[in-house]
């Protein structure tokens, strides 16, 4: 999987490269709009991570250029602007997703994978993880050849865990993924234990393995045994 990172802030760019390489992506990075246009003209990428505020123009120009080239590359916008109209115009031009800085690496990871999944038309719509099979179109989850019924949030959580396999996921990150920016609503994140407990129980009851381990004081990790 090849990704292009367009980000002018050197530190953020370095972090992105380091993180995405760890997720086994091939990464290229540029920090200006003109270089970015050159890159997208010459190469094919599976997904592009695009910062809106670039020194020589707006990231939206790059997006428009990409669409003019008729390339169907998945684009995730990264923006320091939380402005809704920015988001709307970006999505109108043809961005696939939009993340506001500061963003969560796990969240970015889940979104990149989801975009790449959607873009692969000839690929299948199922995700295999050990004895878990997920159909991302019908939202059907099969564990150990048994259908299990998950609530919407449990389904989202499972997908999030699988996207971030082998990574430590904080409770805050899970809550933010499930409820967006509404995490301040919860006096404590205790209720997330209830959600996780239910999900675990459903998988184990169907005869599946318990892939989830608790990292004390930090969060969770989903990994093959």
């Amino acid at each position: 999987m090849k990704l292009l990172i367009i980000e002018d802030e050197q530190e953020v760019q370095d972090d992105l490269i380091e993180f995405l390489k760890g997720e086994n992506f091939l990464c290229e990075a540029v920090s200006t709009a003109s270089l970015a246009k050159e890159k997208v003209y010459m190469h094919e990428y599976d997904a592009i991570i695009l910062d809106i505020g670039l020194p020589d123009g707006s990231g939206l120009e790059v997006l428009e250029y990409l669409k003019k080239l008729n390339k169907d590359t998945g684009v995730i916008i990264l923006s320091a602007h939380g402005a809704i109209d920015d988001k709307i115009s970006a999505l109108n031009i043809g961005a696939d997703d939009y993340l506001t800085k500061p963003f969560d690496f796990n969240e970015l990871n889940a979104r990149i994978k989801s975009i790449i999944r959607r873009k692969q038309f000839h690929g299948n719509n199922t995700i295999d993880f050990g004895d878990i099979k997920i159909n991302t179109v019908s939202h059907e989850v099969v564990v150990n050849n048994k259908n299990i019924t998950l609530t919407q949030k449990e389904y989202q959580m499972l997908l999030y865990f699988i996207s971030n396999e082998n990574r430590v996921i904080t409770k805050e990150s899970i809550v933010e993924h499930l409820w967006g920016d509404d995490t301040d609503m919860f006096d404590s994140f205790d209720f997330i234990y209830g959600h996780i407990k239910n999900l675990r129980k459903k998988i184990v009851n169907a005869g599946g393995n318990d892939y989830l381990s608790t990292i004390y004081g930090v969060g969770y990790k989903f990994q093959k045994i």
Partner: protein
Amino acid sequence: MASLLFFAVAGFIILINFNNVIDNDINDFLVNREEIATTQIVNDIPIEALNNYEQIIKISTNQEEIDNLMFTDTIVYDIIDDEFHAYRKLNVIRKIGTAFYDITIFKSLIESKLLVVEILKPMLLVFLGLLTFLILGNLFISRGLWRPFKETLITLKNYELGSTRSINFSKTNTQEFNQLNSMLNTMIKKIHYDYLNLKEFTENAAHEIQTPLAIIRNKCEMLLQSEKLTDVELKPLKSIYNSCLRLSKINRGLTLLAKIESGAYDNSEKIDITEVVKSQVQHYIEVIELNGLMIKMDLNHQMHFVINPDLIEILVSNLIRNAIKHNTTNGKIHIITLQNCIRFSNSGNQSKMDTGQFRRFNRSNKNSLGLGLSIINKICLAYNIQLKYSYENGLHNFDLNF
């Protein structure tokens, strides 16, 4: 009104003065007649020769004071008119020679009353004329002379800080108003400039903070992935991570508040409020259940309101979140619609809160940012939705009146 009062008082004073003058005149007349009568008696003209209005009786004894003029008002029966008339009477006892005479002189007051009326009539007319003139004059002055001032007021009223439309005062012939307008112009330009500066600063600050925050957050996440960290290192790291999350949330909340205030959300459409409530409740239903809360909805009244779709979502979700956040274990949430009103009620540990809670960073709960209610309040203010808080039977009620 004041001029009317002034005229009334002036008229009253003039009336009293007239009466006094006429009174004095009549009294003089009576004294005069009495002197004539006395002279006649002295000159031995027979008493019968005197006219009707004088009555002289010779009295033998002197019981009363001599030469004491006594004026009294009285009524006398008039045979011709067959009615009573007002008369002024002068009564005096005189000693002429050796005899005592009780002299009484009468004078009708009819003519003097008529005189007063005749004089007051034209005066009243003059007063009325003056009054009308004054009122019309005032109207003219306020319509004409104060017109530029009123225009200035209207211009100021319609002026909106932060709008790109510049303020224009019309030129007038009055120097003072021109001065006022030019001073207002300078003042508003200064305010506008300061406002833009502040706004730019806020936007820049909010924007520029995001990148360093992103770096801190991502570095924390990378460190958290490390398996070599011990508890001693993990604990402060987690604390940095959480503070960073909190900071970015505060930043987002404040930016949102600033945006609502500056009217950045201006594209409105007609929204079915009950639909928004239903979808937001759906969004939070698992959280509500996980927090052991009971939710009861009664959304029978249809409600439509013209508002920005994002803002109404933020408004409703903030109200629901507030109801979840400040609830008790096994508490309840009620959402009821009434005629043009929607009520969010929740049980809670605290007793009635004061309205200061609608201000920023006023929080009762350590984990909350203290921005939720203030965002609710701001949206309601921006769209003229009446927000009412009440507390009854252990339920905190938030009413939105559309």
